[in-house]
């Protein structure tokens, strides 16, 4: 099944006159700062909750039901974001090693290890930056490691856990039984929230929250669609992180909806002015797989020096595939939450569906090549990416590069080797262009 729903409205692909690099660099400042503002607000809430005991709950990013927590004023806490932040600030390794001391294997997901190491080191709780949660909501959406991770958090912190088991998409559509199963579990979650907070469930509040979600989702889709333009106004892999925080962690808030309105307006203006993510856009790529957060800037530089811009990425759709049209629906609150968890996110869909998603990206976002960043930690993403390369190169004839490192553990990033492979790939793309131009 191709990604569902109509694509969001999009401006026609145009080749606009190039503007100077300074203007291109400036855009990062604006949206990055907007994102930082709203995310800092949330992180301050987390910090406050470590001391004031405000109700909070752990939750996973992928296909989450954060709107239900929000309905009860339960502060969502995302251990994945904690792990990500430790990595990007180059602080992950000591926590990874700490976790390995208590038995985690070198082959286990380093997101789990960094977060557990941080917890064991006092990062969670009264003296830390993250509150000990009132309870844990394990939204099992695709990634089996989620289950182990949250089970271990619950055991180590002695807090209750609620499992939300989301059947994997194994037919074209989730069956009515799948939807009913998820709806029942959401209703049970609501009951748990009522018991733990003493608040009565208010469906009108949920509708209002979902209205904000839908607005943010619309903004996400519009922003990504703008990357169909030449030049793309932002790098849809490296800069998507600015939008992933608000869409996944803050979805359902007015702040997140407003953020997307502002971000879209900014990107739209860039498109109108012909300003791109780089001073020159030479190659358009689609990127598959999470980035190497411990070397985020280094990795980005390896592409920028070739004037390569990501016009789409799969990693940015872990939380939701909003660009293919799905929106939370205030008129069908629980149904639409269930449908999103089941179908409209990357993690709960098969590899074959991911191939289709990437193929759509390459075709509709006018990409020259596919880059697969294979990370050891996340086998949901990586297991079988060699087959993906086989499919895109041999069956579709799309130039594809596959490189390996990790999203969290800095020990797996080998800069020289990475640079060699990336350079060789773009050299060959460049040569191919020269050859094709000569043949015309």
């Amino acid at each position, binding site marked *: 099944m191709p990604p569902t729903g109509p694509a969001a409205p999009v401006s026609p692909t145009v080749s606009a006159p190039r503007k100077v690099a300074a203007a291109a660099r400036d855009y990062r400042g604006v949206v990055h700062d907007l994102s930082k503002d709203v995310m800092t607000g949330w992180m301050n809430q987390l910090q406050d909750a470590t001391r004031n005991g405000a109700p909070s709950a752990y939750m996973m990013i992928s296909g989450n039901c954060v709107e239900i927590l929000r309905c009860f004023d339960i502060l969502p806490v995302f251990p994945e974001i904690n792990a990500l932040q430790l990595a990007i600030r180059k602080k992950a390794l000591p926590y990874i090693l700490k976790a390995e001391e*208590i*038995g*985690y*294997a070198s*082959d*286990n*997901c380093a997101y*789990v290890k960094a977060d557990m190491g941080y917890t064991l080191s006092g990062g969670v709780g009264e003296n830390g930056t993250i509150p000990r949660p009132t309870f844990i909501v*394990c939204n*099992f959406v*695709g*990634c*089996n*490691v989620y*289950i*182990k*991770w949250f*089970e*271990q958090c619950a*055991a180590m912190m002695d807090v209750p*856990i609620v*499992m*939300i*088991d989301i*059947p*994997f998409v*194994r*037919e074209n559509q989730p*069956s009515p*039984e*799948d939807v*009913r*199963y998820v709806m*029942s*579990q959401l209703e*049970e979650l609501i009951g748990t929230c009522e018991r733990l907070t003493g608040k009565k469930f208010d469906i009108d509040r949920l509708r209002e929250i979902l209205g904000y979600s839908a607005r943010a989702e619309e903004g996400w889709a519009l922003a990504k669609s703008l990357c169909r333009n030449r030049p793309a106004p932002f790098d849809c892999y490296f800069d998507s992180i600015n939008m992933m925080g608000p869409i996944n962690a803050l979805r359902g808030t007015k702040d997140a909806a407003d953020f997307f309105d502002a971000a879209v307006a900014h990107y739209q203006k860039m498109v109108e002015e012909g300003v791109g993510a780089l001073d020159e856009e030479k190659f358009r790529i689609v990127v598959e797989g999470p980035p190497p957060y411990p070397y985020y800037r280094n990795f980005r530089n390896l592409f920028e020096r070739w004037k390569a811009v990501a016009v789409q990425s799969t990693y940015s759709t872990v939380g939701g595939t909003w660009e293919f049209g799905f929106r939370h629906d205030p008129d069908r609150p629980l149904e639409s939450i269930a449908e999103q968890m089941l179908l409209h996110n990357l993690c709960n869909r*098969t*590899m*074959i569906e991911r*191939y289709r998603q990437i193929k759509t990206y390459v075709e509709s976002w006018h990409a020259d090549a596919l880059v697969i960043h*294979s990370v*050891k930690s*996340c*086998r*949901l993403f*990586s*297991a*079988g*990416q*060699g*087959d993906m390369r*086989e*499919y895109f190169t041999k069956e579709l004839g799309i130039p594809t590069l596959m490189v*390996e490192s990790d999203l969290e553990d800095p020990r797996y990033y080998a800069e020289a080797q990475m640079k060699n492979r990336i350079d060789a790939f773009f050299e060959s793309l460049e040569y191919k262009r020269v050859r094709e131009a000569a043949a015309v």
Partner: protein
Amino acid sequence: MTVVDETVQQCRDLLDLLPAQALAKARERHPGIGGFAVFPVYAPVEIIHAAGLMPLGLFGVGSKLEITHADSRFQSFICSIAKSTLELFLRGEMTPFAGAVFSSICDVARNLASVAKRNAPDMYIEYLHLPQNAASEATRTYTRAEFRRFRDNLSARVGRPITDDAIRSSLDVFNRVRRLVRALYEHRRSHPGTLSTGELFAVLQACTRMMPEDAAVLLEDLLNSARTRKPLARDSVRVVVEGSFCEQPPIELIEAIESAGCQIVDDDLLVGWRLFKADVPTAGDPVANLADAYVAGSMYTSVRYDSGQPRTEGLVQRVRAAGADAVVFAAAKFCEPALLDYVLFRKILDERNIPHLKLEFEEKMWTFDRLRTEVETFTESMLFD
């Protein structure tokens, strides 16, 4: 050679065959029987059997086949069983089978089902989402629907109905097999030195490559023979082996553990094929009975979350019930569920003062000396401390 020796040797010979060869072997006794491959850990094999097919356990290929294609599809940090299973599909070795079933045990198995399907587009490949939430009131209804979906899809594929009566008959056969397996486990536990785990493991694995009717006869003979066997007494440490629920260790590894001074008194080897603690009722709706048994009557495994039956307590109970002195973790290299579970298992064993040792294995291991030395050191530390 004793009867046990002969039986074990026959089983080892059967395990030396590739899956398609094992199916051909089954056809000598059951002409024309179709085969259906079952990737670990669990699948409702009764439904496959009731469709007139032989369910065959797909446990990798060990050293029987060189991996020449699958290595380029699955990276170096992916477990052996995923690669060797894909190799079978890529080489057309699964063509004689009517289909294969995978389930929601881990991220690798899920992607493997997709990659196998893409590379064998004409083959029927089913994927089951087995429930991870045992606490919800909706779980039984969901699981029944999932098993019915499997029955209906399989029925459409084979072009004949899979009737309730046929499933009841299959339940009878598999109940008998599981009863015998439980009796063999009890015998091994209570009569040390009369049946080694190396022997039992070879026979049980071979039983996943034959019709269950034949497996039942074989197991009954084995049980009767083991009961008359003279015990071979030796000093040893009674251990539970944990962590081998999916990819199976080489038999030589189990033998190395035993020869290093361990008497294995319980384990999670091949657990998906002996999952139910009691017979599954045949009266009433047999698919519902099977689904209910999965939800409420299963042994714990590392691929299933069950808030009412924590695996940590399950392991401690397993140790206590078997009268074991220690636990040996034997986890497949890169097996995320086993390696993650080790953290909580280790914690509870430390808290309860139960000694433990961790080993990792791969399909293509061929030397076991280092592991044997590790186990020897471990057992000696227990025997002579």
